């Protein structure tokens, strides 16, 4: 989960701040938000699942250039496939990914609805989300 550092400001009016709190409550009360929180907690508790993710990420980083050139040796390709199966076959990780996707759908619908009403984009992504 990524959480942008908070930049507090006193320029947000009380009315907007109240409405923003209402949106935050409505979002955090959705089934999708609860599911994502529970999936995140389950992933944090599951040492084996986190080790699988770390192992795959380390191998992918190690082979980054070769992957880009599609020139990974057979032995490494087999190892990479084994690591991927360990990650994507892990039910805790699968649940986390699916819960994240479900919450993203809700957030996107919320952002789209706000943007449509405002006639301009409400939230814009800056930079990468995986860093």
């Amino acid at each position: 989960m990524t959480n942008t550092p908070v930049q507090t400001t006193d320029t947000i009016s009380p009315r907007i701040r109240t409405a923003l709190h209402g949106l935050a409550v409505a979002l955090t009360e959705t089934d999708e938000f609860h599911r994502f929180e529970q999936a995140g907690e389950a992933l944090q508790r599951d040492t084996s699942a986190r080790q699988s993710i770390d192992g795959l990420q380390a191998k992918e980083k190690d082979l980054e250039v070769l992957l880009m050139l599609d020139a990974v040796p057979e032995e490494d390709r087999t190892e990479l496939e084994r690591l991927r199966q360990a990650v994507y076959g892990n039910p805790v990780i699968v649940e986390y990914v699916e819960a994240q996707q479900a919450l993203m759908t809700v957030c996107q619908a919320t952002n789209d609805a706000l943007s449509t009403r405002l006639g301009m984009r409400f939230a814009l992504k800056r930079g990468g989300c995986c860093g």
Partner: protein
Amino acid sequence: MNTIELSLTEGLQIAVTELADALMETGPVADFKRAQSRYDTDAEVRALIDEYRAVQVTVRAHETDGTVTRAEIDQLRGLYQRVQTQETIAAFARSQRLSTHYLEQVVYELNDLIGLDFASFGTTASCCS
């Protein structure tokens, strides 16, 4: 109510409406909407932009066939300066910048309240997919 909102819970629909109304009635977003309305309905602005675009098309065409004149380039530059300094256009551009910055602050505050980066979750493109 549109299709997007129908996919939201009732609580979210109400919250979205209240926040959008609050944003559009006060502060930089409200200023932007007013500036946008003036921009859209200002006949002088429309005429100036139409003239600028027409001259721009002519200059590009003449640049391509090698017949562009100094006078045409000067005319285009002069119109560009007028576009840049025209009061309604400048106010529109300034209010757009300020409202965009303001919405960033609002989203930062939302991030703090919900404990995740709403923009990463709420925009269609995903670098993780």
